[in-house]
């Protein structure tokens, strides 16, 4: 190693040391989750704590599906999340296009209405929203879990900004060629805002998959629980009535996390793009 390279390494060493320490602080809890999930079911914690199991046991991942309807929870989460993501992309993209690209009477005031509702916290609307869904007889149904979240003012806002960046010429050229508004939208504009669509999809996915409060109100029946809710019920019921089965709950946590991690690995830049956009535009 040359002298210069050595000096460079020495200068960056403290930075890397700090980063490694912080990285460990972020990662050890995940490591703890995975290793605990591989301890025999019902293991209580020893002191001093063993990070790694003495006997490796994959039984929790089997028990998950035999002791609780965890497979049903997964299916529910997949259905609810998939429909919500598709719905949000479809509803919000078309609305955003309407607001950004078509001019019609009332468009501005309706858009301001959308923005205004973003300022009312969910806690204010959650009670009447529940009563409406209850009135529709949608408690314990997929509709009840999906429909209230199938459109989002935030997503419309984000997509509208994306549509606004596209030059007018695209629209005019296609119109002169005789394309209908729908064709212009589908064939020309949607492909141009793919990154923004991906951001909306990723946010909808994460928000829906990880959501607890709404499923908590709607999925009263065990068979309608999502993964998040199922996991929360493991937690709440076990702490009140019996010693919690931590290895089993850790296994459930790992399974609930896998889809999110997978999506994150594939779509990392859309997470970051969406967050930066919300910050900078704010």
């Amino acid at each position, binding site marked *: 190693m040359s002298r210069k390279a050595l000096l460079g390494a020495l200068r960056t060493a403290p930075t890397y040391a700090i980063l490694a320490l912080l990285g460990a602080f972020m990662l050890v809890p995940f490591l703890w989750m995975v290793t605990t999930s591989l301890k025999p079911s019902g293991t209580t914690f020893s002191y001093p*704590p063993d990070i790694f199991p003495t006997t490796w046991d994959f039984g929790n991942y089997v028990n998950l599906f035999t002791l609780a309807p965890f497979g049903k929870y997964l299916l529910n989460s997949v259905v609810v999340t998939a429909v919500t993501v598709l719905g949000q992309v479809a509803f919000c993209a078309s609305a955003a296009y309407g607001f950004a690209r078509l001019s019609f009477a009332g468009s501005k005031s309706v*858009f301001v209405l959308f923005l205004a509702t973003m300022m009312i916290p969910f*806690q*204010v609307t959650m009670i009447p929203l529940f009563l409406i869904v209850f009135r529709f007889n949608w408690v314990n149904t997929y509709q009840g879990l999906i429909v209230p979240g199938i459109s989002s003012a935030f997503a419309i806002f984000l997509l509208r900004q994306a549509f606004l960046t596209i030059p007018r010429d695209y629209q005019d050229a296609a119109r002169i060629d005789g394309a209908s508004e729908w064709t212009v939208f589908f064939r020309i504009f949607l492909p141009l805002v793919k990154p923004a669509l991906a951001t909306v999809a990723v946010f909808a996915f994460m928000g829906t998959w990880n959501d607890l409060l709404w499923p908590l109100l709607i999925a009263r029946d065990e068979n309608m629980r999502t993964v998040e809710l199922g996991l929360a019920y493991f937690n709440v019921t076990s702490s009140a009535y019996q010693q919690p089965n931590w290895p089993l709950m850790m296994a459930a946590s790992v399974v*609930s996390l896998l889809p999110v991690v997978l999506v994150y690995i594939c779509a990392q830049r859309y997470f970051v793009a969406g967050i930066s956009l919300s910050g*900078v535009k704010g």
Partner: protein
Amino acid sequence: MSVSPAGAVLDVPAPRGDRPARRRRRSERVGWLFILPATAHLALFALVPIIFSLYLSFHEWSSPSFLSAPFVGLDNYRSLLGDDPFWHAMWNTAYYTLLSVPIGMAVSLALAVLVNQKLRGMNVFRAIFFMPVITSWVAVSVIWITLLSPDAGLVNYLFELLHLPKQSWLDDPNAAMFAIVLINTWKTAGFSMVIWLAGLQAVPPELMEAASIDGAGKWRQFWHVTLPLLAPTTIFLVITGVIGGFQVFTPMYVITEGGPLGATDVAVYHIYQRAFQEFSMGYASAQAWVLFAVIFLVTLLQLWFIRRRGESNLV
């Protein structure tokens, strides 16, 4: 996530119509068709609930039938004034916000400055710091309840190794809120880090060079050049952080259930209990509106404070 809308409403030039009248009428109809599904959804699942919630707050509503909800005027709001547990929860909420916002912002800014350096492997560290953000609160709670266990947790073991006194963490009414703030910082720092990063990357390098030529050390450069330039980001994070802090619910629901001894009973958890455990939905709605009013006032106060400091161009 919330976005302040005021600055963002960009004006779109109206399209110049060829064949004015007919074209415009057609485009009117098409425009409404495009926004119809989302607008109908907004009306039914956002506007109606908002109005309905106001209505509820003036009624005594405690049975699943809509017809048996007598009008009680301001009674809900009046009895709320003397409701000590509610104000206790409001105080806990403010305490949580006052702790979590500055701690979270300082930690996430430090992370952002660290990973903003042009060194190898920074992308890996960014990804690692972002991992807790994508993890659900329920999984986070399962992990941290065990890590913070007073007699068998990894954290207390670490404390023992460092010759620090062991803590009761979530079991101690005086420490539970602080423990939740720490967990929240771990969970959300990566999110704010990304926002800080966007701000940091907009700082022109020439300014740093100029400061360094003037003899400013790294620390003074950061304090006197970088931080003032980050003001828009800081303001954004404070305002959205305070709003988010006042609306905190999930960690209290999954980690402490408001305990021990009500030490982590925050406003939304309290409202949730009133509405969905005791079914006093009218009273709970009144509480929700009071919470909203408090958040709104606190936000206005912050904006006023920022304007008074002469940074009106930022809000």
